[in-house]
């Protein structure tokens, strides 16, 4: 039985700019207390700027500054500063788009194979069991009608049903951007200069993550086919730390893992791919076929 959904009514409290709504009740053990919010790098930082945005940033926005860390040592000193494009890493936190994309990802692949037989498909039941009149019993036409034991199901699931549907391409792209932005704002996104680690020992990574308070689970995203052997070996048997290629980045994986680690080449790749959709024409024919100007 479906219960009608009643969402908590958040009172708007925009009088105070960064105030949490006053009637929001949160349990106190939600956030790890030792996970302090690290302030973003200021303009007069001594560390070098390792990456600037290639794509043009609109005039009314400014690039986002983040720390660039390294995996080679376990201490938590950042190595440099990176600039990220605001139209990918600081978009409006559209939670409804995140929900839509997450539900789509779950359901579009679903094929339910539940199948029941209707009264015409159940074996037997062609003959009238007894005469219409004179038996003293109720009148019946077949022994497989739905009111009989062993009879067919009237309104059951019918055959493999597909739940396939596609959200528009731009909605899916916006879902990725919103997920990246929410990781950025809530301080779960970490940029790393490269994925070289000194040992293929999984314990090294776990200690590093615990030392830097990154969280329970980490998703590492890389680009290209060459990867250092150490990190592949280290993450091979680990359930909570996973490494995926950038083309496999999706909203479900980003929400499932607490922390997201991107290399600088990954950031370049993602910015290029996600920003292209803002400026492209509508397709005349599928994008897989060659275009001379897009």
């Amino acid at each position, binding site marked *: 039985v479906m219960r009608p959904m009643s969402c908590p009514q958040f009172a708007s409290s925009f009088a105070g700019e960064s105030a949490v709504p006053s009637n929001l009740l949160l349990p106190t053990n939600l956030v790890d207390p030792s996970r302090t919010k690290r302030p973003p790098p200021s303009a007069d930082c001594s560390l070098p700027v390792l990456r600037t945005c290639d794509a043009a940033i609109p005039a009314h926005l*400014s690039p986002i500054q983040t720390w660039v860390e390294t995996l080679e040592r376990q201490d938590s000193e950042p190595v440099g500063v990176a600039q990220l494009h605001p139209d990918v890493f600081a978009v409006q936190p559209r939670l409804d788009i995140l929900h839509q994309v997450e539900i789509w990802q779950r359901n579009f692949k679903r094929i339910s194979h539940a199948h029941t037989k209707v009264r015409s498909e159940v074996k037997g039941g062609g003959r009238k069991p007894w005469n219409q009149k004179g038996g003293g019993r109720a009148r019946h036409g077949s022994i497989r009608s739905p009111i009989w034991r062993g009879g067919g199901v009237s309104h059951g699931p019918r055959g493999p049903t597909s739940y396939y549907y596609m959200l528009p391409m731009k909605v899916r792209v916006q879902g990725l951007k919103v997920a990246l932005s*929410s990781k950025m704002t809530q301080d779960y996104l970490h940029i790393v200069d490269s994925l070289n680690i000194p040992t293929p020992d999984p314990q090294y990574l776990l200690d590093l993550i615990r030392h830097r308070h990154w969280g329970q689970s980490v998703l590492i995203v890389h680009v290209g086919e060459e990867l250092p052997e150490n990190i592949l070996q280290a993450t091979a048997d680990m359930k909570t730390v996973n490494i995926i290629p950038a083309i496999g980045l999706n909203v479900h994986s980003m929400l499932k893992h607490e922390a997201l680690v991107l290399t600088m080449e990954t950031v370049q790749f993602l910015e290029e791919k996600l920003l292209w959709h803002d400026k492209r024409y509508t397709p*005349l024919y599928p994008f897989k076929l*060659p275009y001379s100007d897009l």
Partner: protein
Amino acid sequence: MSFPKKPGGKATDILQNLPRITLANLRPEPGSKKLWKRLLASHGGNRSGRGHKGERQRGNRPRLGFVGGSTPFYLAIPKYGYNEGHSCRPQYQPLSLKRLQYLIDLGRVDPTQPIDLTQLVNARGVTVQPLKRDYGVQLVDEGADIFAAKINIEVQRASEGAIAAIERNGGVVTTSFYDPISLGILIKPVPFFLRGQPIPRRMLPGEDMVPYYTNAENRGYLADPEKIQQARLALAQKYGYILPDISKDELYHMLSMRKDVRQIFFGLAPGWVVNMTEKKILKPTDEKLLKYYSS
């Protein structure tokens, strides 16, 4: 804006203090999901909205249009051929000069090259559907007073005012005919090349369209060039502007580029096969094929 806006707005500030967004935290926008309610008793149940007895409840109403026995409306009114032959009538997607100027200003259409229907479709300026009896694009006068671009444009139909506006600015208009198959190839060249078929010859217009395309007034591609020059002078006199001399123009070579009667693409002749993957063009060598494709 004099000061830069913070990307993301106030929502990012609030989000920084809220718990982590996880799979357990997502919910749909309030009001987007409406629950399906079962119809019980007085809420759609009992007679289920079908009324009481009779044909209505029993699902035996007569056919659509039946009015109880007298002559129904759709038989009483006599026929007239308003839509007769509508599927054989050629349609032309209108392209106003205002839209053309807009596309040139935004840089979507290049005025330094001949403007073809392929260029217009690549710029997403017009949408042509050859399967819906579209035979191409027609130029419409709207925006003739603000039009100021020197272009070499080829369309399928053009109104007199549009021709005047383009020639006043030193441009060239040509009207040419594309049969439906050639039109389909013209607007989407890449899927055609991927089919691997040789480029076909463009068919000549049918009987009813030949007078239109041989008329110099319409700048038809089958008309006499001298008569076209006379028609240009006549139009300049009619609309009251001085006809600029194109032959002294620096872009004269581009402005005088015209397609052959049987040619679909500039630079590609009928009979050639274009290989997109290997970036090669294959030309026929057999005599009979060459004779056929050059006829």
